[in-house]
């Protein structure tokens, strides 16, 4: 998979983020415009293209959901632009309740404890849906890849909760 090759990293959902960052900086330095000041227009253009490719790859690889979707699409199951809805009543009911709990946190007298508890809940859900992903994403079995796709869809709701939580934290403690 090209993005992993670019950073010379093994193809795996479990990316070493420190290493990814380090490789990114090395690559960025190698194609920095300063190095191409005296070079031909063509070489400058290639460097600019390379820079943009490195940036795209980093944005995908460092974000767990985007990384998972990328790996899945390389395996032939592309869910990145899908518009279909998720219709899993039990999961969605839980999401609804978590959203309600988030609303309550905003009006709580002691939000800090509740935020901690909520964070722990998100972490637990994150683990629940991502624990098998590393294995599933390299599977050759379409049925397994479909399970991975469903896990990724659910993870996106969980990441959304995390975003909402940090937005609330910012508004409460700024």
């Amino acid at each position, binding site marked *: 998979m090209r993005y992993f090759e670019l950073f010379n990293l093994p193809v795996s959902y479990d990316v070493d983020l420190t290493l990814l960052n380090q490789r990114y900086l090395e690559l960025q330095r190698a194609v920095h415009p300063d190095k191409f000041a005296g070079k031909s227009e063509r070489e400058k253009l290639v460097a600019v293209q390379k820079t943009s490719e490195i940036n795209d790859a980093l944005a995908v690889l460092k974000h767990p959901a985007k990384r998972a979707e990328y790996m899945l699409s390389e395996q032939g199951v592309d*869910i990145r632009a*899908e*518009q*279909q*809805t*998720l*219709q*899993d*009543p039990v*999961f*969605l*009911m839980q*999401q*609804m309740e978590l*959203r309600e709990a988030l609303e309550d946190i905003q009006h709580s007298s002691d939000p800090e404890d509740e935020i901690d508890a909520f964070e722990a809940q998100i972490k637990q859900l994150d683990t629940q849906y991502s624990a098998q992903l590393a294995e599933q994403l390299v599977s050759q079995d379409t049925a397994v890849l479909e399970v991975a796709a469903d896990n*990724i*869809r*659910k993870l*996106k*709701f969980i*990441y*959304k*909760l995390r*975003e909402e939580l940090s937005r609330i934290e910012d508004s409460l403690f700024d």
Partner: protein
Amino acid sequence: MAYSDKVIDHVENPRNVGTLDKNDPNVATGMVGAPACGDVMKLQIKVSDEGVIEDAKFKTYGCGSAIASSSLVTEWVKGKTLDQAAEIKNTDITAELELPPVKIHCSILAEDAIQAAIADYKNKQAK
């Protein structure tokens, strides 16, 4: 991104926010979510014995377009039969609310919520 006046109106004055008693045999619930943006929508309908939707309530966690889409469909389904409600298409919603292409998934969410609620009602009646 600018919201249309109609979206803003629904966001500022949402119609039919709330919940219906899910234990009422005439009440059905449709739950749908959009993985693309993490929006969650609950649409409940109360259906008369004649098969007419008497009441509808929604609760949506999402962007303005998702809230407006669900608010709008609660208005639209009231007074309709289940068959008529099932004919509401997401394109009707996008047209009414003037949703831009990036927000089409919000209208799909609302259409699917109606379908899910109708399916839940039929399922409940069959029991």
